[in-house]
């Protein structure tokens, strides 16, 4: 079949770009690229393809880079979304060292993206919305002034509505919060239960920042007395009471009466948990729980029974007179009659705990949820553009990052065997690294220096687990004067690629911080900083996942420099 595409030149160029020999010869490759860029006679498929080829090329100098960007600028204004997105991706990747260029490009594609979001083709609209969400992760304010474009319309299919609700939830700011909440409130009474629940969850998400307005809406929704609404509202209440303690009061006032409208397991668990933990402030809490206990025989979900056990026990500690009798009944039922072993064991466990002593049991069950002086740092929501630039205009944002990860994991396992030699046989499939860069990359491991990798992310749970499983590899004391400014310290540590997991507030005594870092060989460094108020020194304990003294030494010297510098600023 003859090649029908565009003109002969183009065909020849495309061939040349794919040819490994030409790719290997940088000068020839460069001249081909220069010619490609200067052509405008490609059709849109050809353009998209060539933009994809260009991703492999790494310009030698800044000058060349900006040359390419200038020549490709017109593609950003193409009428085909595929070409615009291809060009955007190329720009984002080429300009990875120039954040302002990246922001600029994202400003330019705002128009095309928004147009695609309201396009007549539902599928295109969906893909565009997924990419909008991706951009919002890095630039939260990027689409805030266009929030109205993301209002759902009645006739749209579900998957688009759900995406739009997510987008609205993410772009909310001081100016548009009123409008967005008003809109979301309308969705909460939608005919489709799924969509209504998604809208309520979105309001719950916004409530973490704009508590008062959201609490009012959520409380109003309870007045509808509809099962599918009440259960989700109570679940958001539970999350709110946990994350924003300041709204506990409002939650407690709204709760009475909800129990009549909750039938499903999730909702019941949330309600019972709230009654147990905050029962002190809800006058009729014991009576509601008593109703549950009376009906426990007909209860079908074991998880609800477990929750009930814990809640009644907790409430017993704060309101013993009202709860003693029913706690006894519940324990009796769980131990003697219950058939589910997990519930039964839980009952027995609480019973023995109570036998061991009331005050001990209270200490175990009702102690504060975590060390109040330690607060988890806010999830670093503003991820840099570079972290997702490679995924832009691929299927990753459409699937969602998490789902993509599980997908590719499954695939990876099955494919590793036969496919590895294949990839080795095609040297062209990877990015072409200019020769100088290659040398530099090879040089580094030889010198034995410590290289902490940037953007290393460790979750708090993961940190805790690793921390407990390791032994202290090194302990040292640095001189320190005066108070600590956590923000400054965190900034300084970030510069040297050390991540702060958790930190006490300024002025707490004793002051603590937990840090983590990872070097290029995958070795983890976990660190605890401890500042005792009495003696003027900072004690550090470092744990290492692989015992290697040289890297440990260099890590400690890095840490010492940072702490020394910060200490100097203070004094």
């Amino acid at each position: 079949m003859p090649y029908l595409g565009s003109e002969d030149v183009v065909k020849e160029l495309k061939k040349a770009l794919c040819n490994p020999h030409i790719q290997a010869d940088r000068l020839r490759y460069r001249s081909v690229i220069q010619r490609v860029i200067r052509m405008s006679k490609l059709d849109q498929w050809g353009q998209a393809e060539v933009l994809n080829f260009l991703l492999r090329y790494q310009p030698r100098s800044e000058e060349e880079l900006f040359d390419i960007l200038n020549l490709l600028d017109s593609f950003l204004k193409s009428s085909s979304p595929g070409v615009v997105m291809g060009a955007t991706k190329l720009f984002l990747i080429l300009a990875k060292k120039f954040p302002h260029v990246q922001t600029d490009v994202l400003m330019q594609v705002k128009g095309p993206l928004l147009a695609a979001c309201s396009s007549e083709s539902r599928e295109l609209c969906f893909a565009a919305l997924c990419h909008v969400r991706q951009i919002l992760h890095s630039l939260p304010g990027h689409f805030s002034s266009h929030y109205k474009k993301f209002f759902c319309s009645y006739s749209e299919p579900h998957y688009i509505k759900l995406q739009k609700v997510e987008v609205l939830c993410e772009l909310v700011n001081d100016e548009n919060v009123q409008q967005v909440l008003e809109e979301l409130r309308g969705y909460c009474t939608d005919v489709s239960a799924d969509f209504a629940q998604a809208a309520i969850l979105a309001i719950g998400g916004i409530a973490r920042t704009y508590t008062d307005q959201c609490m009012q809406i959520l409380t109003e929704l309870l007045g509808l007395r509809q099962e599918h609404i009440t259960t989700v509202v109570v679940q958001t209440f539970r999350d709110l009471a946990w994350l924003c303690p300041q709204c506990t009061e409002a939650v407690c006032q709204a709760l009475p009466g909800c129990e009549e409208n909750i039938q499903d397991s999730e909702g019941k668990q949330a309600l019972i948990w709230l009654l147990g933990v905050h029962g002190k402030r809800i006058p009729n809490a014991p009576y509601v729980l008593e109703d549950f206990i009376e009906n426990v025989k007909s209860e079908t979900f074991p998880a609800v029974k477990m929750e009930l056990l814990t809640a009644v026990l907790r409430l017993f500690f704060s309101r013993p007179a009202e709860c003693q009798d029913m706690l006894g009944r519940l324990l009796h039922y769980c131990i003697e009659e219950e058939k589910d072993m997990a519930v039964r064991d839980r009952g027995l466990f609480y019973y023995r705990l109570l036998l061991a002593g009331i005050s001990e049991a209270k200490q175990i069950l009702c102690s504060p949820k975590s060390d109040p002086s330690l607060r988890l740092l806010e999830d670093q929501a503003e991820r840099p553009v570079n972290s997702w630039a490679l995924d832009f205009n691929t299927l990753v944002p459409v699937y969602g990052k998490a789902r993509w990860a599980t997908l590719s994991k499954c695939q990876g396992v099955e494919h590793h065997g036969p496919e590895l030699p294949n990839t080795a046989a095609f040297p062209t499939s990877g990015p072409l690294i200019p020769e100088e860069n290659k040398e530099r990359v090879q040089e580094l491991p030889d010198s034995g220096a410590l290289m902490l990798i940037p953007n290393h992310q460790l979750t708090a749970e993961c940190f805790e687990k690793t921390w407990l499983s390791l032994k202290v590899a090194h302990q040292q004391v640095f001189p320190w004067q005066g108070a600590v400014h956590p923000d400054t310290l965190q900034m300084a540590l970030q510069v040297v690629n050390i991540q702060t997991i958790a930190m006490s507030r300024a002025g707490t005594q004793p002051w603590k911080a937990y840090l983590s870092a990872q070097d290029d060989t995958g070795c983890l460094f976990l660190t605890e900083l401890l500042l005792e108020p009495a003696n003027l020194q900072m004690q550090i304990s470092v744990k290492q996942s692989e015992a290697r003294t040289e890297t440990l030494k260099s890590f400690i010297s890095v840490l010492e420099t940072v702490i020394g510098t910060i200490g100097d600023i203070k004094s």
Partner: protein
Amino acid sequence: MISQFFILSSKGDLLIYKDFRGDSGGRDVAELFYRKLTGLPDESPVVMVTTGGRGHHDDRHFIHIRHSGLYLVATTSENISPFSLLELLSRLATLLGDYCGSLGEATISRNVALVYELLDEVLDYGYVQTTSTEVLRNFIQTEAVVSKPFSLFDLSSVGLFGAETQQSKVAPSSAASRPVLSSRSDQSQKNEVFLDVVERLSVLIASNGSLLKVDVQGEIRLKSFLPSGSEMRIGLTEEFCVGKSELRGYGPGIRVDEVSFHSSVYLDEFESHRILRLQPPQGELTVMRYQLSDDLPSPLPFRLFPSVQWDRGSGRLQVYLKLRCDLPPKSQALNVRLHLPLPRGVVSLSQELSSPEQKAELGEGALRWDLPRVQGGSQLSGLFQMDVPGLPGPPGQGPSASAPLGLGPASLSFELPRHTCSGLQVRFLRLAFRPCGNANPHKWVRHLSHSDAYVIRI
């Protein structure tokens, strides 16, 4: 790069199946896809699915679009650009429509040979070769099979090709749904050009009547049956301004925020005279797209004045809706339908409507009020009384003006033939080139606005 392409009917029958690379399981992939699709909770599926089960084709991504009741599906094993692929699929849909007349289950199954031939030329080993009608026509030999002869005056069949409106009865002829390139013999007979200006309007009006959002998405679409290479010039309204700052002519002017043109449009006369010059290939093509938000020159086509009386004690809900049409008196709106979600548990409805041709009924927890035809400048009203026993409100007795939760927002859907909300008009459509002699080409220029989302909060 795509591995397979197939077309499924809405019932899941495999109409067309083509494997481009031979690296995948075979025909049962299509069945797998349909199973996945129907297994999804939502009636309308998401864009992609992967086969989760273990099997030979484990890591296949399905990307599909739905077009006139058909599923056009491509599979790929690479992480490719979703935008390009979706564009390709919709371009394929247009192409198939061009060649077979219209896209549908019946036309596809009648023209299987033609579709395969077309796919062969468009894609090679999964890579796009060309999608231009112009180039393709040199290679396509099969003639389209057409079910019945098309008559210019047959108004009953499919109408306007551009907009996917509920009922496109406004089109002047069904001639637009004949194959573009089928009949080499009688090519000279039907030289027709269709030019549609189609606008989609989305509006959000707050409960106090203030306008929260107006958004117009417009398109000028062209379907040409002329031999290609014939140049045409499309003259737009001269007061047409692009961007916020530009000013043209006297009076309010016609303003849009953003315009983008098809790559075959020459813009040398656009700045001075607002003339688009182009040499369209045969078939369908979007000449221009434009958007306009927040600043509409003409008044909105509809205003709704609702008043709600709710007696909490007896659970009686009375809704009085007054609908005013602000179009010029000569225009009219067709197929107007008002959709008003109601609180749960509404049991009965009694209605008083202002004219006999209207209809109102309850369905799916909402009130539906159908008005087949609304003349510009007229005012219609409906009084609806309902019983809502299952909504025990707080004990405030007596009638109150505040609406119960779960009522509204109202949404309207309608079509406005011969009207554009932005005010953009096609002044003229001139063909520079007269095809050899016999007949003057027919030119059809149509304007249409229809609602995308017209929401009024109550």
